[in-house]
């Protein structure tokens, strides 16, 4: 798209510049052929505007001669050649206007405006063309820079989307295999329990699919999902696993990213309870923190295990997900000082 015609404001400014150049020229040429500045202007200003439109064709030269990639000799040839052509056209147009002007009553002598000092007039035409050419280059550069910025923004946005997609918590597959194995055991020893387990698992999976696809979900639904997860894991671990969940009243409708807590729940089971001979209690607490939300998940851990065994990749994913979704407004802290592994999340709240 022609950069000057692309926007009304630019076109208007360009025409105004042409008029101004025409006025200047009129002042310079006044006196020739016995015409005053005003009468000269009647001929020269329309000529300047017309020539301005002729100069818009320098856009083709600009696109054919990108300065970054064209050899200097070629660029010089292209620009020089087109300038000469444009300036010659300027002279010819000037004479035509002068000749036509002289036919109009009161403008007699206009034909002499463009017959003297052709070299000077030619240079003026060349200069005007070169100005127009330079303006085109500058505007094209500006447009390109803007487009590049836009593209960068778009790709940044796409990258963030992609990152969120990969960070979006997914149900750990071994959880499914182990649950199926539990069902397999229950089918003969406790058919009613097996059926209950199937429906628990079905409800949980349905919830993760339904809610996992949303941007934000109410805290109440997130907590209900964590509860369902522990109900299922309790079938597997029996008395070794206890789960306590507390939430300050009035938080239910605060919005959180879906399945944000799932990796923490899985970690608490796999890296905490499952590593202890006698198991223990996982606690989750949700409370208000300033005008945001604080969620604490804590579990006991085997003190003999190496530190690295206490945290899974899940934790790092939650941290990155918080950073991507909330920037610096969310935090994740890990603390394992008093025999309990504690993850504290704070995030800005919205309803």
């Amino acid at each position: 798209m022609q950069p000057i015609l692309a926007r009304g404001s630019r076109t208007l400014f360009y025409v105004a510049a042409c008029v101004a150049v025409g006025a200047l020229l009129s002042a310079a040429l006044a006196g020739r052929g016995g015409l005053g500045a005003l009468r000269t202007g009647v001929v020269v200003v329309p000529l300047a505007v017309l020539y301005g439109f002729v100069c818009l064709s320098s856009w083709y030269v600009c696109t054919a001669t990108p300065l970054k990639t064209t050899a200097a000799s070629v660029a010089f040839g292209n620009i020089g050649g087109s300038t000469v052509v444009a300036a010659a056209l300027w002279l010819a147009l000037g004479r035509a206007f002068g000749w036509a002007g002289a036919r109009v009553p009161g403008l007699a002598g206009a034909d002499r405006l463009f017959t003297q000092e052709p070299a000077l007039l030619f240079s003026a035409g060349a200069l005007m063309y070169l100005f127009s050419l330079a303006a085109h280059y500058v505007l094209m550069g500006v447009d390109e820079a803007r487009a590049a910025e836009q593209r960068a923004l778009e790709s940044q946005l796409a990258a963030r989307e992609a990152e969120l997609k990969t960070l979006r918590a997914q149900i750990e597959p071994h959880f499914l295999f182990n649950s199926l194995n539990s069902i397999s055991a229950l089918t003969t020893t406790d058919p009613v329990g097996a059926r209950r387990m199937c429906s628990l698992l079905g409800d949980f999976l349905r919830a993760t699919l339904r809610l996992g696809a949303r941007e934000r979900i109410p805290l109440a639904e997130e907590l209900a999902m964590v509860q369902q997860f522990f109900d299922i894991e309790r079938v597997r671990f029996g008395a070794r696993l206890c789960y306590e969940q507390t939430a300050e009243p009035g938080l239910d409708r605060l919005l959180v990213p879906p399945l944000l807590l799932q990796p923490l729940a899985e970690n608490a089971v796999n890296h905490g309870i499952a590593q202890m001979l006698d198991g223990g209690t996982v606690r989750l607490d949700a409370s208000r923190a300033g005008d945001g939300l604080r969620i604490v998940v804590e579990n006991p851990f085997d003190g003999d295990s190496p530190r690295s065994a206490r945290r899974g990749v899940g934790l790092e994913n939650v941290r990155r997900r918080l950073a991507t979704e909330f920037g610096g407004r969310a935090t994740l802290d890990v603390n394992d000082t008093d025999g309990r592994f504690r993850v504290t999340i704070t995030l800005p709240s919205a309803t």
Partner: protein
Amino acid sequence: MSLRTIIVDDEQLARTVVRECLAAHPDVEVVAECANGFEAVKAVAELKPDLVFLDIQMPKLSGFEVLELVGGEVNVIFVTAYDEYALRAFEVHAVDYLLKPFSEERLAEALARARERLAARTPIPVGALVAAARPEGRPLHRVVVRDGSRVHVVPVDRLDYVEAQDDYVCLHTEGKRLLKEQTMAEAEAALDPARFVRIHRSYILNIDRLVRVEPFGKDSRVAILRDGTRLPVSKTGYARLNELL
């Protein structure tokens, strides 16, 4: 021929599945169920079963560590929800590798393999078991040692030094000595080379314990440990030590 088996899994329901499926095989007798690795090692030592169904992810002692401790005496079928250990399982000569949840047919297949192996009296290669507890490419974070039916778990940072002793290595940890059936080369390979250094043909030292090295006699040296223990340092050992420090 009757097949005496032990089922090891920290989940009650998982043990139930195996036991139920085994009920269909009259020649198989379940002599014990164990909820963790310690019980498993004890049961294997005391009951001398033919076959163990062994879970991998268990508290305190993993299935691979149990195998390292008792694998020379018994055939093992791993039962786990994780398929990523399959390769390692066969490297340590497990009879089979069952993925939870498994079918009765699949379990029958595994049993058939076990019977074959027992009938052929294939000796179990102990050497291959030693590296069993070590995850691929990663140094150990704890050493397991069996003492009859008891199991000692020694985190490597509590290990002072390892001493060669005939067919065994002697682990020195906080004043205690534990014998482990292993060669020095195997012990050296299993320990983190950034923290443990072979200072002598017969000694691997935890460098955290080292206070200083003194000359001793003609072109030989001695390492002084924090508790005052003196260990000989060979010429190549000294070079290795310098390289690390």
